[in-house]
């Protein structure tokens, strides 16, 4: 593993994966993943399709218990714990698929997010806090979630994670299927959560935007972490760009010349 990290930060390690091996059926997806995430950081995980990015998130939230290796959260070994136990510890997982209840209002969806919390008052307070970062919570509170646009739904999903007052938010491709305006909203929202002190582990195929919203980056390939480092450094690295980022994914590319080639 190449470490391009030169931040030298001493802040607390919130999450540490050591030699994690995991897979489905007979197949092995993660082949010894090592990863460390510091308190308050946003880390973006990028890499080819099938590299194991979503699987990393599942081993952390408990949806898939690792076969070998350990997952340590706040200094405690949580390897093989259930998603519910991990949720109580403060780990929330937002999957790739849309996960709101389409027939329920925005407000009810947020209430559902607090199903493990007994105090109605606490839920109410947390929804209000969430509304500071995501105004849609109040502006569209009585709208059925299913009639919101994709970008709006993603914002409600992110707001819903805050009802648990999470210590760690796992986001699996939050920008997928979103139009350019909504994508910007979602990446701004991620920065908003970071500013509010949340620690986030993010998976993105929209690699440039994902790294731009992150403090740290990690590149996963064939079940192993190949490179970790400061996100901005990875973005500028020509070798990383050639192997993993491809052509620029900006909204406004350079104009074409008459032959249709990029200038």
């Amino acid at each position: 593993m190449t470490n391009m990290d030169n931040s030298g930060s001493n802040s607390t390690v919130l999450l540490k994966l050591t030699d994690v091996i995991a897979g489905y059926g007979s197949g092995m997806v993660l082949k010894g993943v090592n990863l460390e995430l510091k308190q308050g950081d946003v880390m973006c995980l990028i890499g080819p399709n099938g590299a194991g990015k979503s699987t990393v998130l599942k081993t952390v939230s408990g949806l898939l218990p690792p076969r070998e290796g350990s997952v340590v959260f706040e200094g405690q070994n949580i390897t093989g714990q259930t998603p519910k136990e991990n949720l109580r510890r403060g780990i929330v997982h937002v999957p790739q698929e849309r996960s709101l209840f389409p027939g329920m209002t925005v407000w009810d969806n947020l209430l559902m997010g607090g199903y493990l919390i007994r105090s109605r008052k606490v839920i109410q307070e947390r929804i209000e806090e969430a509304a500071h970062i995501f105004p849609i919570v109040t502006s569209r509170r009585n709208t059925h979630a299913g009639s919101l646009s994709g970008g709006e739904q993603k914002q409600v999903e992110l707001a819903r994670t805050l009802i648990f007052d999470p210590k760690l938010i796992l986001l699996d491709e939050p920008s997928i299927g979103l139009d350019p305006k909504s994508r910007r909203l979602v990446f701004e929202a991620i920065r908003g959560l970071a500013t509010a002190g949340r620690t986030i582990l993010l998976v993105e195929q929209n690699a440039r935007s994902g790294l731009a919203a992150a403090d740290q980056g990690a590149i996963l390939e064939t079940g192993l972490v190949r490179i970790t480092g400061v996100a901005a450094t990875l973005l500028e690295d020509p070798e990383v760009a050639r192997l993993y980022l491809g052509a620029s994914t900006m909204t406004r590319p350079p104009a074409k010349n008459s032959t249709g080639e990029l200038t």
Partner: protein
Amino acid sequence: MTELLRVENLTKKFDELIAVDNCSFSVEEGSITALIGPNGSGKTTVFNLITGYLPSNGGTVEFAGSPIHGQSPGTLYRKGLTRTFQQARVFADLTVQENLVVAGGGSWTNLFGRRITAEDRARAAELLDEFKLSHVADLYASELSWGQRKLLEFASVLMSKPRLVLLDEPTAGVNPILIETMATHIRSYNAAGVTFLIVEHDMSFVMRVCDPVIVLDRGKTIAMGNPETVQSDPRVLDAYLGD
């Protein structure tokens, strides 16, 4: 150029919501046409109406000069009209390689119990290699990641011999490097005479691959033209691209 697909005054209502509102556009034979627009503007519904997955509440669709209104997806597939989905639809209980070889016939009667030729196998192996799926060729499609299913569905389209292909967000969840491989295949297939209509949010991809671009907003066509013109159209900036 001649029109391969013509959509006229197409309308679809879901209860109170008018998802597609008197929408009209056409796709020229031999083009790579993009259909863009905000989330919820009706793009996928238009695809579902064209390909027979949804009945419309009004309007007509013509393919190669004949009305195809009300025809089933299977009938349209046999006529050379094929599509992909946002959430890729593959045969979960077939292996990755089997998914490709059954797609190779281009004819429904060939799909089951057909003779799989050496040529089919060679073509499948080539595509698996290009889309970095060779190492999972013998896994069931249900074991693939979301993005890998997307690539498999795209490769399956390339195995068939369609006349018009509708791609619904082909690059969503696909690694940036493989997006380039997709672009290359779309161009070479297009050069061989296949027409494409592509729903896509990756504007960089649209600008590099597609011409013309049709813009949908609230179920209506609001702009149409070459990528540069559309990209600087104030209505498109307002509805879709933002600042």
